[in-house]
C-alpha cells in the first residue's frame, strides 16, 4: 500500500530545470515510487492530480508556491525523501568556489558591463517587469517567456523603439545574433543571408535548410509570434529589417511570419522593397501575389522554398543597384496625399492592389477591405482612389470614358485640397471612347498645376494612358499633349504604382526613435540571463560571455508589496 506525502513551500521559486533535476534525484531515493515537483499553477496541479499525486493539502497552493509530492511505499520513506529536498537543492548549488551569481539585473550589469543582451525566461507574470528593467539598463531583450499580454508587448516594444533597442518576443524561441544562438537555435554556418522571423521553429527550419544547402546566415532575428499582428504593427520586424538593410554582411534577406495581419503585411512588404536587397518572403498562409517575383521581392510558398531561394540569391552575382536611399529621406521627399480619378474600374482595382505594397491605407468607393470604404464618395480623404465608372457616379450621366465633365470637376476639387501631392488619372483610348481626351484633360492639368504652384505647392499629375498606335485618338499626340501640360505619363499599372511608391511618404509618419545601432549585430554577444539557467550555459558553450542572474520573483511574489514598490518608483 503506497502513500503520498506533500510539502508546500510558499513563494519558493525555482526554474523548471532545477525542479526537474530535483524530481529525478528524489525518484532515485529508496522505495520512492513517484515524485512530482512543480510550481503550483492550475495546469501543473491538474497534471499532478492525473498522476494521483495531488492530495487535499496541495489543492489551495498558489502559482508562486512549490509543491513537492512524493509517493512512496510507506509514510516513513516518503518523509525521508522530503527531508532530503534541501540537501539535494544545496548540493546542486555548492560547487566549490562558485563565482557570485547576481540576484538582480542591476548587480549583473555591474559585473558584466559589456552585456548587450538580456535573455528573459522567467514566468510570464514577471517577464514584462524584467524586460522593462533590462530596457532601462539600455540592454536589448530576447524575451522567451510567454503569457505576456499583448498590451505589455506593445508597450515594451514601443519603449524599445524609443530607446533604439530591440525586444525579440515575447514567446520568442529562436534567434542567432553574430553567430550566437539564443534560446533554441541550430548551429548554422555564417553566410550572406539575414533572417527576420515571427516564428521560432520557422526560423530554425529555414536556417537549418540554408545550412544543409551549403549556404549560411549573418543573423536570424526573432520577433515573437504576435509581432505582425495589428496591435504590435511589426515594431520589431521593421526594426530588424532595417538593421539587415544596413548590415553590409547581409546580401539577402528572408522574412518569415505566421499569418500576418493584412495591413501589417503590406507595411512589411513596402519596407522590404526599400531594402534594395533581394528579400525572400514567406508569410505562412498569406495569399501570395500571382507573380512570385516582384522587383526585389521573392515570394516563397513554403519554408523549404524560402531557404532554397535565399541560398540561390546569395550565390547569384549581385546586380549593381542604385545607392541606398534611407527611409528618413524618402519621408521628407514625398509629400501630400494621393488621389486617383479613374474611369476604368479594373484599372482602379489593380492600382489599389499594387499600392498595397507601398501605402498604408487607400480609401476608395471600391476599397480592398471594408475599413477603407470612403464614407462620402464625393469627398476624398487621405489617400483616395475613385472609380468614377461606378453606378453612384453614372446614374443620369454618361460613363467617364465618354464624358470628362465629372472628372474635370473632381480634378479641380482634388487640386484645391492643400493636402494633395499627387493625382492619378487614367486615359483610355480606342474605339468608343472619348474622341480626344487630351483636349479636355490637358488644359485642366495645366490649370491645376499652375494653381497649386501659385499656392506654393508642388502637385504632380500622373496619367496612365491605355491604347495603341493605331487608335483613332492618336496615341503619340495624346501623350505629347498630356506631357506638355505637365503630366507624367505611365503606360503600365506596375510602373505607375512603383512611381507612387517612390514619391509618396512610405508611412504616415516616421517611427519614433533612432534606428537601432548596427553595433548590436556586430559587437561580440554578451548576455545576462534571467530565468532558465540552461540558456546561460548554452551561450557559454558557444564561447560567448554570459552571466546568469539568480533571479527570484520580486518581493517574493507578494502583490501588495510589489504594488507599493511600483508606486514608490513613480514617486
Amino acid at each position, binding site marked *: 500500500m503506497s502513500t503520498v506525502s506533500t510539502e508546500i513551500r510558499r513563494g519558493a521559486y525555482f526554474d523548471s530545470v532545477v525542479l526537474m533535476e530535483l524530481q529525478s534525484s528524489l525518484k532515485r531515493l529508496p522505495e520512492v515510487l513517484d515524485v512530482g515537483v512543480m510550481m503550483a499553477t492550475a495546469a501543473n496541479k491538474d497534471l499532478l492530480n492525473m498522476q494521483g499525486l495531488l492530495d487535499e493539502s496541495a489543492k489551495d497552493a498558489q502559482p508562486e508556491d512549490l509543491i513537492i509530492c512524493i509517493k512512496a511505499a510507506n509514510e516513513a520513506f516518503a518523509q525521508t525523501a522530503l527531508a532530503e529536498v534541501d540537501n539535494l537543492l544545496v548540493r546542486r548549488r555548492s560547487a566549490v568556489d562558485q563565482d*557570485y551569481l547576481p*540576484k538582480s539585473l542591476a548587480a549583473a550589469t555591474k559585473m558584466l558591463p559589456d552585456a548587450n543582451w538580456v535573455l528573459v525566461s522567467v514566468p510570464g507574470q514577471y517577464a514584462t517587469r524584467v524586460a522593462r528593467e533590462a530596457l532601462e539598463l539600455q540592454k536589448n531583450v530576447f524575451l522567451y517567456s510567454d503569457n505576456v499580454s499583448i498590451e505589455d508587448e506593445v508597450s515594451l516594444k514601443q519603449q524599445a523603439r524609443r530607446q533604439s533597442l530591440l525586444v525579440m518576443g515575447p514567446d520568442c524561441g529562436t534567434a542567432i545574433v553574430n553567430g550566437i544562438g539564443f534560446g533554441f537555435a541550430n548551429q548554422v554556418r555564417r553566410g550572406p543571408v539575414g533572417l527576420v522571423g515571427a516564428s521560432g521553429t520557422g526560423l530554425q527550419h529555414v536556417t537549418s535548410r540554408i545550412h544543409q544547402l551549403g549556404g549560411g546566415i549573418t543573423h536570424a532575428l526573432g520577433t515573437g509570434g504576435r509581432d505582425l499582428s495589428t496591435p504590435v504593427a511589426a515594431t520589431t520586424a521593421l526594426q530588424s529589417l532595417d538593421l539587415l538593410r544596413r548590415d553590409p554582411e547581409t546580401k539577402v534577406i528572408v522574412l518569415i511570419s505566421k499569418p500576418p495581419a493584412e495591413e501589417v503585411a503590406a507595411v512589411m512588404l513596402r519596407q522590404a522593397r526599400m531594402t534594395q536587397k533581394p528579400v525572400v518572403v514567406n508569410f505562412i498562409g498569406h495569399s501570395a501575389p500571382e507573380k512570385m517575383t516582384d522587383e526585389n521581392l521573392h515570394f516563397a510558398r513554403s519554408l523549404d522554398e524560402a531557404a532554397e531561394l535565399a541560398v540561390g540569391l546569395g550565390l547569384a552575382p549581385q546586380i549593381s543597384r542604385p545607392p541606398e536611399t534611407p527611409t528618413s529621406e524618402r519621408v521628407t521627399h514625398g509629400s501630400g496625399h494621393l488621389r486617383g480619378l479613374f474611369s476604368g474600374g479594373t484599372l482602379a482595382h489593380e492600382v489599389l492592389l499594387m499600392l498595397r505594397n507601398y501605402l498604408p491605407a487607400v480609401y476608395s468607393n471600391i476599397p480592398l477591405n471594408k475599413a477603407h470604404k470612403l464614407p462620402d464618395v464625393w469627398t476624398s480623404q487621405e489617400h483616395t482612389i475613385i472609380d468614377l465608372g461606378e453606378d453612384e457616379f453614372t446614374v443620369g450621366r454618361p460613363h467617364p470614358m465618354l464624358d470628362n465633365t465629372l472628372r474635370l470637376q473632381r480634378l479641380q476639387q482634388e487640386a484645391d485640397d492643400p493636402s494633395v501631392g499627387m493625382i492619378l488619372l487614367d486615359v483610355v483610348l480606342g474605339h468608343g471612347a472619348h474622341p480626344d481626351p487630351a483636349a479636355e484633360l490637358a488644359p485642366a492639368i495645366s490649370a491645376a498645376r499652375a494653381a497649386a504652384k501659385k499656392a506654393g505647392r508642388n502637385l504632380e499629375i500622373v496619367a496612365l494612358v491605355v491604347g495603341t498606335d493605331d487608335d483613332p485618338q492618336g496615341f503619340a499626340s495624346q501623350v505629347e499633349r498630356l506631357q506638355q501640360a505637365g503630366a507624367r505619363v505611365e503606360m503600365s499599372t506596375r510602373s505607375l504604382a512603383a512611381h507612387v511608391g517612390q514619391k509618396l511618404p512610405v508611412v504616415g509618419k516616421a517611427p519614433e526613435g533612432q534606428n537601432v545601432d548596427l553595433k548590436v549585430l556586430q559587437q561580440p554577444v554578451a548576455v545576462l540571463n534571467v530565468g532558465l539557467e540552461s540558456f546561460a550555459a548554452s551561450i557559454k558553450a558557444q564561447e560567448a560571455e554570459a552571466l546568469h542572474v539568480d533571479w*527570484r520573483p520580486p*518581493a*517574493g511574489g507578494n502583490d501588495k508589496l510589489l504594488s*507599493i514598490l511600483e508606486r*514608490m518608483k513613480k*514617486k
Partner: protein
Amino acid sequence: MDIDKANKEATEKMIEARAVLVGLGKAKDVIPGMRENLLLHAGPPITWERASGPMRGAITGALIFEGKVRDEDGARALVENGEIELEPCHHHQSVGPMAGVTSPSMSVYIIENETHGNRAFSNLNEGYGKVLRYGAYDSEVQERLRWMEEVMGPVLKDAIEASGGIDIKALLSEALHMGDEGHNRNKAGSILYLKALAPHIARVSKDSAVAAQVLQAIGDNALSVLNPVMAACKVMADAAHGIAGSTIVTTMARNGTDFGIRVSGLDDQWFTAPAQIPKGLYFPGYADEHANADIGDSTITETAGIGGFAMAAAPAIVTFVSGTPKDATNATMEMYEIAFSEHRAFTIPSMSFRGTPIGIDLRKVVETGITPRVNTGIAHKEAGVGQIGAGLVRPPMEIFESALVAYAEKYDI
C-alpha cells in the same frame, strides 16, 4: 518626494560622519536620559517576561553590580514591579554588544561625530569567557566588572583625554585593510586601538603595574575595540536618521527575543519579529539546541556598512560558516544588491578597493528578498553559560515588509 534624493542624503551623512572617541564617563553622568532606576539593553524594547536567558542573566548581573539585588529572583521582582525600568540602548544614543545591559554606574565610551556633532555611547568590553554580555553574573563576573570600573576605567579615561581623541573611522578604514570586518573580527582593530592608547596609558598611569594590567587587558582581548567601533557606527547611523522620505535602515538590533529595525524616514518606530538562531560553528560540546536567538546591538556595524557587509575584507572569518574565501567575497557582492551606495572611507583591497556596501535600502531588501547578512557570536540560551559559537544570521524578512507597508501609509503611497 524624491526617495533617491532622501536616501542619498542619508547615506552621505553615514559616509561623511567622522567618529572620534573623545572620552569616558559614568553612564548616569553622560548618557542622555540615564537615571538610577534604569537599565539599558540591546535590541528593541523587551519585558522580563519575554526576555531570553542571557538577557535575564545580564539584567541580574547589572543589578547585582549596582548593589540592588543578590540573585535572579530579586532582579525579576524589581523589574516586574516596575522599580527598575528597561529601555533599549538605542533610545539613549547608545549601543551594547550581546545583551548590551548598561547600568547607571558603568563607564561608557563617548564617541563624537565631528562632522555632524551628535554623540553615542557604549559600555566597555569585558573580554571572553564568562561575561555579563552573555548573561553570566557570578562572582567572577562581578569581580571583573569592578576591576574594569575601579582600575581600568580611570586609566582609560585619562589616556583617551590625553590622546586628544582617537579617530575610530580612520582606525576602521585601516583595520579593513588588515583582515577585519569590524563586527565579528576585530583583531587588527584592537591592536591598532592598543597602539593608539599605549603611550597615553603609560603616561597617565601612576603605577606601572596597573598600566601593564590595562595594556594586557586591551591587548589580550581581540574585541576590545568592538564597543568603540559600535558607538562609532551608531553616530554614523544616527546622523542618517530622521530624513523625511528616506528608506535607509538606520537601526538593526536584537534583544535575544526579537529582531528590530528602524528606518530613517519612519521616525522612531520599531519593526520587530522573532529573532532567529544563527547558523554557524559551535564550540565543542554545543549545538543548535543550546543556542539562544540572535542577540545584541552589534548589528549597528552592518547598518553602517561594515561587519557582514565587509565580509570580503575578512576572508578568515568564513571558517565560522565552513566556507571558502570566495564565499566571503560573494557575501559582500550580495550586500551590494540591497545597499543604496558604496562607502568611500571603508574599502576592500581584494575587490580593487571597492567601497563597502552602505545604506541598507528597504525597497531593495523587499524587492530582491535579500536580507542583510550579519556576522555574530552565538549565546547559550541559559543565563551565565556565555558564548558557545559564532556564525551568520539574517533578520526576519517580515520586519522589512511591515516597514515598507508603514512607509506606504505614512507617505500616502
